[in-house]
């Protein structure tokens, strides 16, 4: 029987299926971090258990860490304790930890692929919703809650019901100045934040195949923002090339065998999806959000919807409330609107290619005096690469602040926050009320659009800055 990519991986990991119930799914890799793991460690300890397969667990500290002076003790007491707790737990349970100060430390979804831990055909989980990122390699990767972290600690398995399957084909070529972040913001604006709830979404089509691995990660990263259980992309030569030679990639002896398995990972010609849609890449323009969920996005030169014309009452109320929080007006354009902050970072867009894109726009230029620009590399390795390529000099000359690796201003948990009432163009993935700090107003956009705003201090169309 023809199978989808998702089914091929799923079927290989089912230990057992309950009648009229979930399946017991075996998990290959479990990534953990300081915020969602402590209660799970406590849970298994209360049951007198040890972590069942510690060699399949990898830990890092990212959410709650400062991005300045990481060599010093963390100032905030609760944050320090949480990070300490992770260190102790990992030690006690023989789990590899890439903590602060380690050259592999970074945002969990940046380091997994970068170290070659993430591989095609795997099941990967993490107590973080953006685990969907890893699906870019043709794996089933999804976020879980802390109780589920505990389940995986205890048994290396999870109870999961099989999601429905959706395929989104993006066909054709992107115009200049449009990148993968624009594709995914466009899709979410089309299908809304709940549009893929209950589905595993495969991204396919010529525009996806044309993307680099890092750009594909951006797409899968944000598939959770349309409610999807996970996002995935069939692996191809680019995927294999990316993995080859990385720290934890298969050894040379194993490589051919693995490659043989990986090449089988695609949706068969006539495999059935519960839902399928096609999007034309050529129709996508640089995107920006105006509201308080990632589905409230428009093209940068478009207009905020006129709320009076929205028929659905719930949706209208939602948008009215969002505009009130954002201090924006129904029907207006965002172009030319002043912003006070630009945040370039997060597991969506903090990889070396993202930073190269930013550098390509700002090279030899200087930021606007009215805006603070923060660049936060996703990992220590990205930070090292930034230096090696001399991008740091470009950013410094532009007046940007470069921070150390971590989630930073993506979530308003660590010290990096946007002050109440101020606007921030952010390359991250969530614009919820207070996400970047209580009262902060977030406009999600691509690294290119963020770079353009850094130069002008206002919402700008990046296409005017590139030849």
């Amino acid at each position: 029987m023809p199978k989808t990519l998702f089914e091929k991986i799923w079927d290989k990991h089912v230990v057992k299926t309950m009648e009229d119930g979930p399946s017991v799914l075996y998990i290959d890799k479990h990534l953990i971090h300081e915020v969602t793991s402590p209660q799970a460690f406590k849970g298994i300890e209360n049951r007198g258990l040890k972590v069942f397969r510690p060699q399949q667990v990898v830990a890092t500290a990212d959410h709650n860490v400062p991005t300045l002076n990481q060599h010093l003790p963390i100032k905030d007491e609760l944050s320090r304790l949480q990070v300490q707790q992770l260190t102790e737990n990992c030690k006690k349970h023989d789990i590899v930890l890439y903590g602060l100060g380690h050259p592999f430390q970074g945002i969990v979804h940046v380091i997994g692929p970068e170290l070659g831990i993430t591989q095609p055909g795997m099941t990967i989980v993490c107590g973080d919703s953006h685990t969907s990122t890893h699906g870019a390699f043709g794996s089933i990767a999804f976020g879980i809650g802390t109780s589920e972290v505990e389940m995986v600690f205890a048994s290396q398995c999870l109870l999961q019901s099989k999601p429905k399957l959706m395929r989104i084909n993006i066909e054709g070529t992107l115009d200049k100045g449009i990148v993968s972040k624009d594709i995914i913001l466009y899709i979410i604006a089309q299908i809304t934040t709940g549009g893929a709830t209950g589905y595993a979404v495969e991204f396919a089509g010529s525009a996806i195949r044309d993307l680099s691995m890092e750009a594909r990660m951006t797409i899968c990263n944000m598939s959770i923002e349309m409610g999807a259980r996970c996002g995935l992309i069939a692996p191809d030569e680019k995927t294999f090339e990316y993995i080859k030679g990385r720290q934890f990639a298969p050894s040379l002896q194993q490589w051919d065998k693995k490659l043989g398995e990986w090449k089988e990972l695609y949706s068969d010609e006539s495999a059935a999806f519960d839902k399928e849609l096609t999007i034309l890449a050529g129709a996508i323009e640089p995107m920006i959000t105006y509201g308080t969920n990632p589905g409230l996005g428009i093209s940068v030169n478009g207009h905020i919807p006129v709320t009076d014309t929205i028929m659905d009452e719930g949706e209208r109320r939602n948008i009215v409330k969002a505009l009130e929080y954002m201090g924006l007006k129904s029907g207006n354009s965002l172009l030319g609107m002043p912003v006070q902050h630009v945040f370039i970072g997060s597991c969506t867009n903090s990889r070396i290619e993202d930073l190269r894109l930013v550098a390509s726009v700002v090279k030899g230029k200087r930021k606007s005096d009215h805006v603070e620009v923060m660049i936060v590399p996703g990992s220590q390795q990205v930070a090292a690469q930034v230096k090696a390529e001399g991008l740091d000099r470009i950013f410094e000359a532009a007046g940007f602040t470069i921070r150390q690796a971590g989630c930073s201003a993506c979530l308003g948990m660590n010290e990096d926050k946007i002050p109440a009432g101020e606007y921030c163009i952010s390359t991250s993935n969530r614009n919820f009320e207070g996400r970047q700090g209580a009262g902060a107003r977030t406009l999600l956009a691509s690294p290119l659009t963020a770079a353009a705003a850094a130069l002008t201090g206002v919402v700008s169309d990046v296409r005017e800055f590139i030849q």
Partner: protein
Amino acid sequence: MQPIDIIKSTFVPLPMENIDTDQIIPARFLKATTREGFGKNLFRDWRYENDDESTPRPHFILNNPAYEGQILVAGKNFGCGSSREHAAWSILDYGFRVVVSSFFADIFKNNALNNGVIPVTVSESFLHIILEQPETATLTINLGEQSITIDNTTQKENFEISSYKKTCLLNGYDDIDYLLSLKKEILEFEEARL
């Protein structure tokens, strides 16, 4: 986990759509390393003007003494966003055992079930009817029967829940007990993959 079967209670209406877990519990309250005490920070930024709790926002429903109960009724796509289980913990710790909505985000739904909070999915029209009730109205959620009733009316609807999860909730079992009982199968599975 506390076993749960029938809940009859007044409810707290929160008729907004897309309530995300960053609103349910903002990230700055996720620094604890235990599961307890999250209830006081439930909907923190909607409840208080600032961080010291000195200025409650009078218009927010949790600050209105007329509304209370073990049931939260919210608009569609409840619990979207971050996977933080702290959202479910804070709802439970505040005193809710049931959340009613016309649509739940995936991870939140799982997290709720894993903590003995029942996510009850009702039709859009039934949700509207509930929201039109006076604050003294009570709802009865009967898990065994998989039904939700607006008491003293003829309004009743059935809801879906996986039979496995239902058994867990009725008995207060959790998934880990079950997974641990499968040790042999898991070892055999690993063996076969090598």
